């Protein structure tokens, strides 16, 4: 469990807006509706969705809680099929040979190679199991703070998309500018002054 690991990495979000009522129920519904499917799709290259923190591979929000004290804790799982390039190369070589034998020609056209590649990718995609990656999410709803336990760009993008779809709340990534906008008590004139700052130069 990443969240309880000795070492972790994280990116931070501020959650804009709030639910009008019953936040716990709204979160529960969003998690259930957008949970990762229990059965893996054979043809989808990537599938992503929520899963309970305590049960990353059996996404059952009826059995496992996402509420820990005043926090919501759950996980984003991204399953990806990854076909090694060398395997594609090998299957392509085999299929091209078969095509040559069947046609009695020494050469295979560009179009035929494209068709073979498409067919090879389909077959391999169907056979290949997905590799799951699990990223924990800690959400302090009251404070509108959220930690996503990864700094991988692709995972952040998936998270942002699925979060909006699930809860219709906007996660704003925390970095220098957004920290000033969302967490500071600076007055408007002070903010204006910050926005006119330029990089420091230490050389002489």
């Amino acid at each position, binding site marked *: 469990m990443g969240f309880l690991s000795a070492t972790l990495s994280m*990116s931070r979000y501020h959650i804009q807006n709030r639910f009008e009522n019953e936040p716990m129920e709204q979160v529960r519904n969003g998690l259930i509706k957008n949970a990762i499917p229990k059965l893996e799709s054979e043809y989808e290259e990537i599938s992503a969705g929520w899963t309970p923190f305590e049960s990353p591979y059996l996404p059952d929000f009826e059995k496992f809680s996402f509420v820990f004290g005043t926090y919501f804790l759950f996980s984003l799982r991204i399953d990806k099929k990854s076909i090694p390039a060398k395997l594609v190369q090998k299957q392509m070589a085999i299929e091209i040979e078969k095509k040559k034998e069947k046609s009695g020609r020494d050469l295979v056209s560009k179009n035929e190679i494209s068709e073979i590649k498409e067919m090879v990718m389909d077959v391999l995609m169907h056979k290949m199991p997905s590799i799951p990656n699990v990223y924990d999410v800690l959400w302090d709803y009251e404070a509108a703070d959220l*930690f996503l336990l990864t700094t991988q760009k692709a995972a952040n993008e998936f998270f942002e998309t699925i979060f909006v779809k699930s809860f219709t709340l906007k996660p*704003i990534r925390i970095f220098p500018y957004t920290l000033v906008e969302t967490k500071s008590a600076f007055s408007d004139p*002070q903010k204006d002054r910050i926005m006119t700052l330029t*990089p420091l130069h230490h050389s002489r």
Partner: protein
Amino acid sequence: MLDIATAYNKYGFLGNDFVTWLWFLIETDQNITRMIAYKDPVTLEIGNSLVLENTLGDKSKEKITIKGDRAGLEEGTTALKKGAKVTEINLVCKLGQEEEYTFTIKGESFNITGLKTPAAGKDGSADEMEGMVLEKALLLFRITQVIDTLFLQYLEQRISNDWKDNGLQQMRKWIHND
């Protein structure tokens, strides 16, 4: 609020300036506890890595990475003299007598990697799970609060009227060993 992608690119330098300033605070023994008005003593030390970047005349970038538990940082200050900025820094932060956190923070994104917090109590039972989660959550929020407060304090200094004559001069004095 500006468009997020635009703001990220436009104001990323504030984060790099901030982590450079953190290094200055550490090297010049500034009283961080008083600065952020924290209830317990706060100390910061440079950990085992420091990364600096310098944009060269042709817009290409020079990257200087210093790694090692007791690595000398002279090359870093030399790079600062040439106009480089710290882009990421590994820090050891002590809150009070017992809580020690180590992590690397990237200036531009504020991404935190390799974060080690004090251990959250573990006995493996289901009843303890909630306790462990709450304790870990508390530790994560505590360290991020310290980082945020330091950053906002830095900005407060940057926009103060005496920044150019005081804060900036002190930093330059440190960098150039005056």
